[in-house]
């Protein structure tokens, strides 16, 4: 026992000496550690594993390949690596994983990070470590409000976009009375607030709104209540996501609420949700998305490449991560360095036009990506022509209207 202990000590001392050899690199090199490291931190096993998860890592790798193909020998960094970690949607794990990615894995940027609470944790780390963080997966507008900081970007969507797209557009289309059900945690509460505001602004009324436990598999109390409310709501707005949403939609169909004149609008819906439910379960449901793979030639071309690699069609989240990774690399290329301050300078106010971000700008005041969003509707299976072709885009919401018109004054970069 004691002998192994001393042996361990010796071995440990050896390791220690070996470890001391490679100290941090010199401060003046253009590319830190001689390479650019992109790290994807997201949910790889829980409720958002299908929306982003491991496929997102593939999307980011595609961005690296495309970048290298474009610049070849002229690329600012010869070596570009992609790392990843699973945060299990827990802020505590996100917190320690983010530190680890920046410290141990030499990550220069962290991407994705769904679940707002986890995103806030990573934003705090990014701020302290002065490293770039581009969030795609989280919805909260606080990322560009109270929680914003110089090194954090919000790329893709937020609860404002969802609420003002779906809430306002559906109300203007004549569904004036809403019944909102939302999961009782930060994301749901935030969505309930922004949706209610958007609906009122568009001249509608929120008849009632109910919090549900999270996670939850029985929504019958809330669904059965809907047709009996006074005035009768024309649409149920559900803010559930992932597995909860799947349960709610199944039960909505079992009670045949659509036949009773109560429509369904979904706060946050991903292609993967439609795929797992089947498009008939959601047919006619309207929602706002930041991208759709079959919307036009440019999107489709990329989706085909993605399909060739993974056998699946990409969700909007994956496309957004591709775009974020690509734009980060472009910023490194423009600045000639992966130094965080320089990259931030290159990204701020930059105009972007790629297969994901259309008519896009990164707003310098709050680091929010403004781009076109799409009001979409799920097609019945009779109209679905090929696998994953579940959605038709009803309307493009221009970048200037899709997101907050003004930066939140609470944000001080």
């Amino acid at each position: 026992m004691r002998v192994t202990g001393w042996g361990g000590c010796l071995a440990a001392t050896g390791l220690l000496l070996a470890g001391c050899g490679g100290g941090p690199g010199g401060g003046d090199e253009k590319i830190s550690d001689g390479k650019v490291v992109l790290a994807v931190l997201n949910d790889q096993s829980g409720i958002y594993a299908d929306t982003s998860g491991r496929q997102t890592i593939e999307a980011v790798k595609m961005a690296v390949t495309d970048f290298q193909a474009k610049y070849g020998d002229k690329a600012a960094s010869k070596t570009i690596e992609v790392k990843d970690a699973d945060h299990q949607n827990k802020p505590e794990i996100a917190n320690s994983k983010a530190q680890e990615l920046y410290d141990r894995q030499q990550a220069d940027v962290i991407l994705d990070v769904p679940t707002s609470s986890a995103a806030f944790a990573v934003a705090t780390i990014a701020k302290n470590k002065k490293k770039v963080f581009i969030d795609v997966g989280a919805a909260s507008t606080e990322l560009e409000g109270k929680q914003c900081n110089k090194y954090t970007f919000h790329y893709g969507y937020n609860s404002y976009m969802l609420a003002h797209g779906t809430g306002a557009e559906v109300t203007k289309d004549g569904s004036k009375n809403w019944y909102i059900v939302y999961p009782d945690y930060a994301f749901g509460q935030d969505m309930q607030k922004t949706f209610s505001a958007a609906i009122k602004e568009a001249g509608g009324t929120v008849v009632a709104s109910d919090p549900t436990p999270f996670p939850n598999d029985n929504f019958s109390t809330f669904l059965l209540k809907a047709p009996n409310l006074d005035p009768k709501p024309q649409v149920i707005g559900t803010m559930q996501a992932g597995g909860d949403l799947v349960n709610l939609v199944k039960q909505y169909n079992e009670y045949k609420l659509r036949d009773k004149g109560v429509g369904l609008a979904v706060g946050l819906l991903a292609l993967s949700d439609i795929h797992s439910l089947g498009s008939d379960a959601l047919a006619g449901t309207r929602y706002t998305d930041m991208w759709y793979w079959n919307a036009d030639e440019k999107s489709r071309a990329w989706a085909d490449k993605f399909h060739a690699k993974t056998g699946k069609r990409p969700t909007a989240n994956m496309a957004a991560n591709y775009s974020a990774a690509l734009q980060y690399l472009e910023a490194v290329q423009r600045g000639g360095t992966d130094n965080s301050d320089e990259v931030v300078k290159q990204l701020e106010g930059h105009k972007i036009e790629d297969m994901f971000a259309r008519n896009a700008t990164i707003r310098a005041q709050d680091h929010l990506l403004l781009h076109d969003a799409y009001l979409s509707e799920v097609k019945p299976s009779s109209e679905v022509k090929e696998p994953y072709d579940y959605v038709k885009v009803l309307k493009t919401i221009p970048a200037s209207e899709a997101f907050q018109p003004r930066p939140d004054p609470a944000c001080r970069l």
Partner: protein
Amino acid sequence: MILTRLARSGRGGWLLLVAGLVAAFALPWLIYPPVALDIACWALFAASVDLLLGFTGLLSFGHAAFWGGSAYCTGLIALHTGMPFPVAIAGGAVFTALLALPIGFLSVRLSGIYFAMVTLAFAQMIYFVANQWRDVTGGENGLQGIPRELFGLDLSDSFFFYYAGLPFVLAGLFAAWRIVRSPFGRVLVSIRANPDRARALGYPVDRYKLQAFVLSAALAGTAGGVFSVGHGFASLEGVYWTTSGQAVMMVILGGIGTLWGGAIGAALIVQLQDFLATAGFAETGIITGTIFIVVVLLFRRGIWGTARHLLITRRTPATPADVAAEPKKSVDTPV
């Protein structure tokens, strides 16, 4: 005090103490410093659970309330008053001791599984309070950006903060060791062995149990405070029942009633989780669960307990003091 005890237990004790201290100080050189700090915090947390489980015979399944409660309290003090972090941690520990008073008062009357269930129920109540009281605790988002203020010293590097946090852990472990070796601790052991006889001898059993509960909670609170300052973060995860379960698991792995076994269990579990997560293996539970089953089946005294048992049985009969303080039956009658 240390000296007399070590003199009595001979050379082995010295060596082990020195080895332990060297390991504690060398840890952040050997492994990633935040992980090292996690191990230190969990070691103290496990010791606090062992104080109840191994020495008083109470299996608390609600210690997350104290660990996580202190994490919040420490975080709030550090965030809102800007006091140096040692004050915040002390505040957190005092808060948990106060919190443990009513909880302990109501639960120490029970024993065995009932005690475990009642403490679990209280801990879940604390969890829901923390979840719903969003203005204070941040709900889902947790408390973020807890500062590491210490008279203007820059402790932002986790490597240096480890050495700032370590004294609290060592002090906590020392306190636990003193409690166990004191006359008070002997009474606790006698209560574990036979509460009725202890009562017949005139010891107010419930009051002793309550004192042990509060002391244990304060130690758990200290650990939780260091943890939250170390991570700059306090979250619901800390007050969730899985946290209690993890601490109990560390104690069982290391050896119930050994006090230091918890540190071994903590080092094992934390390292394993870190290793598996970095290796991209998602189902950490399968591996830790398997190890747990193997240890429980093969080393019923836990890792440290088995090692110590082998040492004691191989050595010529130990001194009376050792026999009294390290009862061989400690593992067989834990609850």
